[in-house]
């Protein structure tokens, strides 16, 4: 009888968590939504009312279709439901159209497609074995992990307030990671290939997938010391992997190849004409770089070392997505960022090849790829941090070291999303949800690892606590000061620089831990 109770209780909590967060998402329907709402409405209209040949040429709205074909097909499928809600939203010329039915449909489409995310989290919880601590439900790694993923603050505000479809895409990624953990490599590869054709930002983590599948799937055995055994290479596996990727790509890009439109599609997908930083600087290396440049130019002006007339006028924080010249430091070109990103990714890839540590090692490499490209990429959005935060949650319940890095990364990364929501009614929501998630994640992981050394040293604690005063200054003090008109960009600048420090720190620490970790063979001997 007790066993039955435990079994039903074991299944119940997951559905309760998932349903609970779904209901919360429903409550968020009337909140503010950004221009991305119009972007997706426009894409619904384009895919619904135009032939395929025009999808990537249509330019009535400034929000042209710039996601890969599968996403376009996804919008096409949605549009056939949308027509039962409101036919008007499917008209390409109906720019900025918004009715209550459109709102309901779009919001519900996000909530509904999140089912895939919930399923993926369920699968992940099955295959991740975290540290075994207490007997109580709330102290089980699986419970903590599902809360961390399902109730993720970033996803909630980016998808359900700001409006995007990250939940379902992240679901695909988590599902493919879970499949790799479950040794179902082909499925994992297939899912990832599909994901790539939904949103090409996942190209950043493709090296991790490629190398891992090649090293740990195509080579069927290792030498006893963990190094590669060349004669164990399986051509069959390589060919089947290649076939899967090829078929998926053919399905996605084939029609456009047939229409001879591939160059046009690619020019839409990779718009290098945009600036180095997004309107609001993502908290990465370039934010620090630009802040340093700004500081140097101010110092230079004060000391009369620079000629004011030679300084370019375009301010980086003026809010427009545009090219920008640095004043003192050399300006950064797309090629330079590409090289920086590659250099940053390489060590982790080498590590994955020479010190294979099974799926866990792959997961670390994937996170490092995501983080490195976030750090050095061209025109990075602050939302891209979710690409690293979500997989990192899987690691966090395993080891105390990972947990502390996860907490620093998540807290600063989430805080850096705050400027996305700048309207007054959403202010309490973002603060409350952020507090909810942060307090829960920190305390639950502390409880999980209470027998080990404390998760944070004094410096990290001080840094994280500093986010509180920063928020108070940016949102409650600054608007009432006289600087508001003269330097309106100060809160954004402070936020992104402060967060950039934390994210760089977490990235660096994660890298050190990956590079210095002993390979599997040695740990087994110990």
């Amino acid at each position, binding site marked *: 009888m007790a066993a039955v109770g435990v079994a039903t209780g074991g299944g119940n909590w997951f559905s309760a968590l998932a349903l609970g967060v779904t*209901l919360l998402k429903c409550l968020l329907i009337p909140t503010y939504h950004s221009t991305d709402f119009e972007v997706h409405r426009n894409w619904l209209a384009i895919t619904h009312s135009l032939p395929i040949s025009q999808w990537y040429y249509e330019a009535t709205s400034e929000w042209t279709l710039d996601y890969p074909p599968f996403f376009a097909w996804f919008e096409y499928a949605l549009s056939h439901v949308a027509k039962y809600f409101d036919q008007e939203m499917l008209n390409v010329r109906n720019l900025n159209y918004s009715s209550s039915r459109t709102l309901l449909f779009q919001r519900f489409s996000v909530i509904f497609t999140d089912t895939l995310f919930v399923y993926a989290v369920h699968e992940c919880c099955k295959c991740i074995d975290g540290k075994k601590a207490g007997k109580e439900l*709330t102290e089980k790694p699986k419970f903590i992990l599902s809360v961390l993923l399902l109730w993720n603050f970033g996803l909630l505000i980016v998808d359900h307030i700001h409006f995007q479809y990250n939940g379902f895409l992240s679901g695909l990624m988590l599902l493919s990671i879970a499949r790799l953990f479950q040794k179902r490599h082909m499925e994992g590869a297939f899912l990832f290939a599909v994901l790539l054709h939904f949103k090409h930002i996942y190209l950043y983590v493709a090296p991790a997938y490629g190398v891992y599948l090649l090293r740990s799937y195509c080579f069927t055995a290792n030498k006893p010391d963990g190094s590669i055994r060349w004669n164990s290479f399986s051509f069959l596996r390589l060919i089947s992997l290649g076939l899967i990727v090829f078929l998926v790509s053919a399905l996605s890009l084939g029609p456009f190849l047939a229409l001879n439109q591939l160059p046009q599609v690619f020019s839409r997908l990779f718009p290098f004409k945009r600036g180095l930083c997004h309107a609001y600087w993502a908290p990465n290396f370039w934010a620090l770089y630009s802040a340093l440049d700004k500081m140097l130019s101010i110092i230079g002006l004060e000391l009369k070392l620079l000629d004011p007339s030679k300084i370019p006028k375009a301010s980086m924080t003026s809010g427009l997505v545009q090219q920008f010249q640095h004043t003192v430091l050399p300006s950064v070109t797309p090629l330079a960022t590409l090289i920086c990103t590659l250099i940053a990714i390489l060590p982790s890839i080498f590590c994955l090849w020479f010190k294979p540590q099974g799926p866990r090692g792959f997961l670390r490499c994937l996170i490092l790829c995501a983080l490195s490209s976030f750090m050095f990429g061209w025109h990075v959005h602050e939302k891209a941090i979710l690409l690293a935060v979500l997989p990192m949650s899987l690691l966090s319940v395993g080891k105390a070291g990972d947990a502390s890095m996860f907490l620093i990364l998540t807290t600063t990364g989430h805080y850096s999303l705050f400027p996305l929501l700048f309207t007054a009614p959403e202010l*309490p929501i973002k603060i409350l949800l952020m507090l909810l998630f942060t307090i829960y994640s920190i305390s639950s992981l502390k409880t999980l690892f209470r027998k080990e050394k404390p998760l944070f040293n004094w410096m990290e604690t001080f840094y994280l606590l500093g986010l509180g005063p920063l928020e108070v200054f940016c949102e409650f003090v600054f608007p009432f000061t006289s600087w508001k008109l003269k330097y309106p960009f100060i809160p954004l600048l402070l936020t992104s620089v402060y967060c950039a420090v934390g994210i760089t720190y977490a990235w660096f620490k994660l890298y050190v831990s990956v590079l210095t970790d002993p390979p599997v063979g040695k740990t087994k001997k110990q």
Partner: protein
Amino acid sequence: MEKCYLMTAVVLLGLTVRWTVSLNSYSGAGKPPMFGDYEAQRHWQEITINLPIKQWYFNGSDNNLQYWGLDYPPLTAYHSLLCAYVAKFINPDWIALHTSRGYESQAHKLFMRATVLIADLLIYIPAVVLYCCCLKEISTKKKIANALCILLYPGLILIDYGHFQNIYNSVSLGFALWGVLGVSYDWDLLGSLAFCLAINYKQMELYHSLPFFCFLLGKCFKKGLKGKGFVLLIKLACTVVASFILCWLPFFTEREQTLQVLRRLFPVDRGLFEDKVANIWCTFSVFLKIRDILPHHIQIMISFCFTFLSLLPACVKLTLHPTPKGFKFTLVSCALSFFLFSFQVHEKSILLVSLPVCLVLREVPFMSTWFLLVSTFSMLPLLLKDELLMPSVVTVMAFFIACATSFSIFEKTSEEELQLKSFSISVRKYFPCFTFLPRIIQHLFLISVITMVLLTLMTVTLDPPQKLPDLFSVLVCFVSCLNFLFFLVYFNIIIMWDSKNGRNQKKVN
């Protein structure tokens, strides 16, 4: 206290839900000339800050009592005054005399919603958290689950944050809860002080006053009326009188002032009931128009007699056996009697019953959850009028899931869990085959839930026939009223058969 963080998370979740609900529409939004309860609250701020205290309750050239005149006790007025000072600091237009009538803007809505949240955060939520932490004989996890369920109770959230009642329920209910806490843990003076504040904030709190009175009187009797009990009685009386005098001080200067306030508080010249209420009189008048047939004073007499009779047994029982548990159940049954039988009841007064039911969630999880669902359902017509369908459905589902997961209510339907053991035993003395009660209750629950869901669906999707425009709202009242009657009987049974149960437990111990 290492589970402290979970309690914090629960409170934060409760606050988030409250704020998200508050983004929706409020009563009377954009509906001149009278607007709604939201405008009433704003109007009171306008009156209290611009007029001298002597004119607050009087009709005058600056204070038209027909337009949302102040009809709540002094503490409400003081609270409005406090809010008005803040409003004046932010934007004086919001409370300018005469010109601000029907003022509506996004910023003002934000301000009004924030006042509710702050009042809630200061008074109601701490009381709930403290109440759950003080519960005995259960694990920390259960305490937190209990707090989650109470904080997620949809009725209160929807009325305070969605509909925006012209009186902050969270304040009056919060004070009452502080009172319950104080009295249950032998801080009698503080408890009665808190309860006096509750009454002085909202006169409807009188629904709860009899159990308080009986419980405290019972305590005095227990200590012996000739010794300690008498001292306690005197102390209590002094506290009550002192706190009342303090609240009413500005109105005691003239006799006419006090009388006018009282007249405003108890408008006996209004009808037996207003709008559609899920009480006996409204339901009964579907068949027989009592309001038109009987003269006014007879209506008052009848409602008084019925109320008195229905709450008499529970109160007598409480006076004779004052236990904290009995006190909570008596609070439920008394408030329910008042709601069902008394004069001039509003549909929102069901919240006064819901609060004590929330407190017995742990003792009778199945029945309490059921009651709380019905209570929210009974306000459906009101919520629909305010376009709050979506948040209502969502919060009700969230509440139901929270209760079902944290108490596993469906496994708790045995006689023991329903607290009907001693009742069934005594009935079985006469009818030995009386063993089907739990099953009947389960079936009733199913029927009731299905009816509620169907009625909600019908109300939302179908247009009522032209001859009977109020068909659905009357049906909602009728169904809720039947449910409430059943609950009245149930709770009275629990109260009356409680002591035997207690004695049995003592024997077992």
